[in-house]
């Protein structure tokens, strides 16, 4: 009877699922029929100019494309020709008016294990959340990543020999109040305001370089290991010394974020940690589940699994040029990405990103969007590219003709158009397509099975035993061309990709088996070089450094990112030259040479650079997208009218 009940319950659940699915679909179809009517009604599509909202309040008078300086001291510092910082300029598509205040509601797919910027793990989520809380030495122009304007620092200079950087900090910048009950006598030691001082930067570097600190510090260490300790000249002036004059030094100077020594060197009762173990104490520091910084928003509360709440920072220093646009920011934790669109429709979110298949099924070609009056769509580029990596240490993939053939057999354009909903561009090299480093004259290889067959034959792969699978004698053993492709687990898109690729490969006599793996398992396999091929993605960054992914010295390091063991003397030469080249034109020439080399060697089968659709309610201004991390910078989002 119990069993019957169980399965009866199961049947009922499934039936319910089917019914709900049907209702959902029926609703969508209903909505579609309204589209025509709405089009006639003149719904706006993102990008078309909006009529200025009547209720706009609190506009500071900032104008698109205009320069803004925070203070007289800024102007003076910017007049110094040695200053590496440039004046801040509002983005060209900055909204005409902003209704400041209200609560911005957005979502995040997963939470970091903690909120210590350096000692907690999982850097992606942390850096996303800290975009709200923190400020850096300089503010990177979101639409022109090469321009950095004064933020915490007024002036940054570089010495003649390139080995010393001097940073002059702004005066009067104050750390946010910690999110604790200050009336509690236990926390009385935290009551006084703490100004930002140069030693907070020295402390951040100490944290990163201290081997006792785990978490994000472990990955940051590789970038900062060559730095000498920061020399504090006075409270508002410090000096960074590096071992070698490299192009990547400057971006790293700007990447260093200050850490409050007055908080993290002490236990909850205000007693300092001793010098031998303070690093270890960071990993379990009492404040690690809370955030602190100098940015436009202040951390209020983290309800685990529910949401993180930030509020306008009353002591924020940069209120003149780009003040906080919202009183509060609520970041809801929503693990089911399929549900984001539903949550947007029910006004639990102000804006959201959409999955490719959802975009395909519900939105593509159905603009203005599905009769949800007031929803607008914007599609933006992402800096990431997707690829299939071939393990060059496996005899199957040692020959570049084979790798080329495998690329030719992969219908990238067809997949992007169908499975990935047209949200992307097929790419041919390891750079962001908008970066000057990307050589647009190098076209991606076409989808051509005949050419692939010919190349494989040229590389000695023939079907000698008539079994339909190519083979070749390798190390005295007849080896059939069979391999396993590791794909992202739980992704319907990648499962479909694998099915399509498998079919195409079978036609040229190559047998591929797909193996979906969880992210952690895949990372382990790639780090240990225990794979034939895998699907992956990189965010190449704006200031190109080829060392991490492509230098042969990284091929043998077990944890390094040169998973495919790419080795090329020419590639090494370019990677090293690029690190020491500062002239933009020469850098571009070097990048282009590298792009050509990579296109010829095909260590990866480059797939596509992704675009992402974003839907938002029309009480928001059309978003200004940052070139690098389009969604991370809350300062670029604003309300056109305050939502009720």
């Amino acid at each position, binding site marked *: 009877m119990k*069993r*019957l009940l*169980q*399965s*009866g319950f*199961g*049947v009922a659940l*499934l*039936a319910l*699922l*089917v019914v709900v*699915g*049907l209702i*959902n*679909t*029926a609703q*969508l179809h209903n909505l579609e029929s309204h589209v025509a009517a709405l089009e006639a009604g003149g719904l706006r599509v993102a990008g078309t100019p909006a009529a200025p909202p009547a209720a706009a309040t609190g506009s500071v008078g900032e104008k698109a494309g205009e320069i803004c300086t925070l203070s007289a001291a800024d102007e003076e510092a910017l007049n110094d020709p040695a200053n590496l910082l440039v004046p801040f300029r509002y983005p060209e598509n900055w909204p005409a008016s902003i209704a400041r205040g209200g609560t911005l509601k957005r979502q995040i797919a997963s939470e970091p294990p903690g909120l210590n910027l350096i000692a907690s793990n999982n850097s992606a989520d942390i850096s996303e959340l800290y975009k709200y809380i923190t400020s850096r030495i300089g503010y990177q122009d979101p639409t022109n990543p090469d321009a950095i304007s004064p933020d915490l620092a007024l002036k940054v200079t570089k010495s003649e020999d390139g080995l010393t950087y001097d940073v002059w900090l702004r005066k009067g910048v104050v750390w946010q109040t910690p999110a604790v009950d200050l009336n509690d006598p236990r926390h009385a030691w935290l009551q006084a305001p703490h100004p930002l001082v140069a030693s907070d930067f020295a402390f951040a570097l100490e944290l990163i370089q201290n081997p006792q600190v785990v978490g994000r510090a472990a990955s940051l260490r590789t970038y900062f290991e060559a730095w000498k300790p920061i020399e504090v000249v006075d409270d508002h002036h410090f000096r960074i010394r590096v071992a070698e004059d490299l192009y990547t030094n400057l971006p790293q100077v700007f990447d260093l974020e200050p850490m409050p020594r007055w908080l993290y060197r002490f236990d909850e009762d205000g007693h300092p940690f001793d010098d031998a173990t303070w690093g270890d104490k960071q990993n379990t520091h009492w404040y690690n589940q809370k955030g602190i910084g100098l940015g436009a928003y202040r951390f209020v509360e983290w309800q685990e699994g529910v949401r993180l709440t930030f509020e306008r920072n009353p002591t924020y220093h940069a209120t003149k040029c780009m003040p906080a646009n919202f009183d509060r920011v609520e970041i809801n934790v929503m693990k089911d990405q*399929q549900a984001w669109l539903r949550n947007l429709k029910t006004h639990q979110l102000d804006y959201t990103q959409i*999955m490719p*298949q*959802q975009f*395909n*099924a*519900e939105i593509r070609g159905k603009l203005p969007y599905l009769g949800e009056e007031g929803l607008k769509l914007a599609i933006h580029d992402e800096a990431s590219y997707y690829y299939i990596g071939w393990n060059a240490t496996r005899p199957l993939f040692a020959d570049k003709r084979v790798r080329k053939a495998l690329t030719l057999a992969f*219908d990238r354009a*067809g*997949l992007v*158009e*169908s*499975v990935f909903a047209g949200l992307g561009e097929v790419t041919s090299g390891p750079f962001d397509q908008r970066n000057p480093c990307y050589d647009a004259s190098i076209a991606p290889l076409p989808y051509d099975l005949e050419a692939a067959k010919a190349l494989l034959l040229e590389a000695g792969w023939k*079907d000698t*035993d*008539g*079994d*339909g*699978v190519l083979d070749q004698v390798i190390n005295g053993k007849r080896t059939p061309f069979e391999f396993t492709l590791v794909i992202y*687990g*739980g*992704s*319907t*898109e990648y*499962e*479909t990709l*694998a*099915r*399509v690729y*498998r*079919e195409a490969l*079978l*036609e040229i006599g190559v*047998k591929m*088996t*797909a*193996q*979906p*793996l*969880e992210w952690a*398992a895949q990372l382990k396999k790639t780090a240990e070089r225990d794979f034939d091929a895998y699907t992956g993605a990189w965010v190449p960054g704006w200031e190109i450094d080829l060392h991490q992914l492509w230098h042969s010295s990284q091929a043998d390091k077990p944890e390094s990112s040169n998973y495919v063991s790419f080795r090329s003397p020419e590639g090494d030469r370019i990677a090293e030259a690029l690190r020491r080249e500062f002239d933009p034109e020469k850098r571009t020439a070097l990048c282009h040479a590298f792009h050509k080399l990579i296109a010829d060697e095909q260590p990866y089968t480059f797939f596509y650079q992704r675009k992402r659709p974003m839907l938002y309610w029309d009480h928001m201004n059309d978003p200004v997208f940052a070139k690098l991390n389009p969604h991370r910078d809350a300062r670029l989002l604003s309300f056109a009218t305050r939502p009720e």
Partner: protein
Amino acid sequence: MTDAVADDPTWGQIIWGQFRRRKLAYASMWGVFGLFLIAVYSPIFISNKPFVWNAGEGIESPWLMTLFNRSTYENAIDIFFNSLLFPGTALVLPAAWLWRASAVLPGRSRVARRRRIAGAVVGIWLACLLGILAFPVQTSPVNHPRVEDRLTAAGTPPLAIYPPIPYSYADTDVKLSSQGPSLGHWLGTDAAGSDVFARMVFGTRVSLTVGLFAVAIYITIGTLVGAVAGYFGGRTDAVLMRIVEVVICIPSLFLILSVAAFITERSIFHIMFIIAAVAWTGPARLVRAEFMRMRDLDFVSAAKASGFSRTSIIFEEILPNALGPVLVSATFGVASAILVESTMSFLGLGDITVPSWGQILAAGRNDNSWVLILAPGLAIFLTVSLLNLLGEGLRDALDPKLRG
């Protein structure tokens, strides 16, 4: 000439008679049998390999040649069912004739003859299956419809006779992705451009295999544990039952999902074993109860007095009498195993090389396509309902109080 002696009705015959009187259950049994036939014979109706093919190089049969090709049929489930199709069918037909012919034999020798026939069929088929698995047939996995298109375009159309639905569940065509139902594709296509109807029909194989194998595994484990616990009683029973209780305590779906997450290289066989690993406790308790009831009955005492070994008392005397309730729970078990597999595939923890119903359902949710939700949903609903009706009928037939 004398007629064969009419035997007394055996226990099996009584049950069969009772079962046949329950019309719904009887119809369900044929329904399940129908599903089984669909699973076995699907390549005859759905395949992209022509039965006959002549592109000027002589007549060949790619359909037959690829029946056991591990490139065309990636998963062992398909190889298994294809072996039932051929040589399975070829064995069953003459065997059925011999079976019939044996009806004229007197009681004992008829039973012996029929046993031999059944043994021979299963033996030959198993030998073939093992042979196929050990020495995989390899032929060219050319996509014949595409070759045909190419040849036709070149003005030399080949002779090709295809099954009625000339697609394979593995065929992809991104130019035809996510299409609605049409004459060419009855249930439309999915994101990869595969024919959904073909995937649905081949999904029957996955569901039935998972159901039957998982249940076969756990019934075996459960019966053994239950028999030992029930027959010996005392401490053995106490220890075994405590283990059973511990396993029962863990919510099964939760356990299944966490175990599945541990296995990085999941195949459909892992999924069967995982289901079996949590479900064996039910039959263990049933069998134990039956053994406890029967171990002091007269026929057991008689067997003991005659000096039968323990093994033969347990397995030859008591067990056949205790199997009734197990059989009933097995039918329900098949249904719930099918549901569990669908759930796992739906959650992305299934085997991606097989077209399972749960997977199609997940794709439908992803693509927001009603066909992809409705079709597998109904198929699961139908299969599970048929199995449950069958189980209920069997249970009633076995219950002496309900005999009319």
